[in-house]
């Protein structure tokens, strides 16, 4: 069985994932190129590549840390909610992919390779977001709401 990360990794993930995404967006918007020009460097490509790699890896690590960190007390019910959340996320992903592929099939001008790759990347990210949001919502909000 896969071992979960210690609880404090959840906070690290919560900090690192948005930071990685920001770096990646900054690179896409050309901010890194602007910064290199500001400092008088003519070739911005290496810095752009490094920023893209660091940003994407930080984002993926952040998502991984948020999804696979233990709760303060990781008991049987928490494990159960974790499993249910995976099931829900997988179901939503299958529905999204099926609907998306049907829509692509119905299009007169279907998207090319890059568009399809973006679609599948979005499907993967939606899976992780659904899992993280559902799990944390149930464990930290819905259960306490029921208690009231």
């Amino acid at each position, binding site marked *: 069985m896969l071992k979960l990360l210690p609880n404090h990794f959840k906070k690290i993930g919560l900090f690192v994932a948005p930071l990685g995404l920001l770096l990646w967006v900054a690179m896409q918007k050309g901010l890194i190129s602007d910064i290199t020009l500001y400092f008088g460097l003519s070739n911005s490509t290496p810095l752009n590549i490094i920023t893209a790699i660091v940003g994407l890896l930080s984002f993926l690590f952040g998502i991984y840390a948020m999804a696979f960190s233990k*709760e*303060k*007390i990781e*008991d*049987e*019910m*928490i494990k*159960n909610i974790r499993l249910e959340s995976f099931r829900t996320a997988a179901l939503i992903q299958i529905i999204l992919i099926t609907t998306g592929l049907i829509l692509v099939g119905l299009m007169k001008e279907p998207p090319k390779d890059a568009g399809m790759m973006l679609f599948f990347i979005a499907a993967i990210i939606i899976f992780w977001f659904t899992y993280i949001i559902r799990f944390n919502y149930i*464990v930290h909000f819905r*259960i*306490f709401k*029921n*208690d009231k």
Partner: protein
Amino acid sequence: MINSVKSNRKLQGVTQEELAQALKVSRQTIISIESSRYIPSTVLAIKIAMFFNKTVEEIFELERIDFD
């Protein structure tokens, strides 16, 4: 399945947090068991019964729907 965890806990003057600590589970688990939203495993059910010095049947009771 219905249970009398909440009433037994209140009878003994124990908070959800204290019961959770004694059973080494989260407070969320105690809340869910008390509201019958989560059915504990046999091990946890026995631990709960032992905590209240009662039998499992005295704490947990099957409903008609459980036999269907």
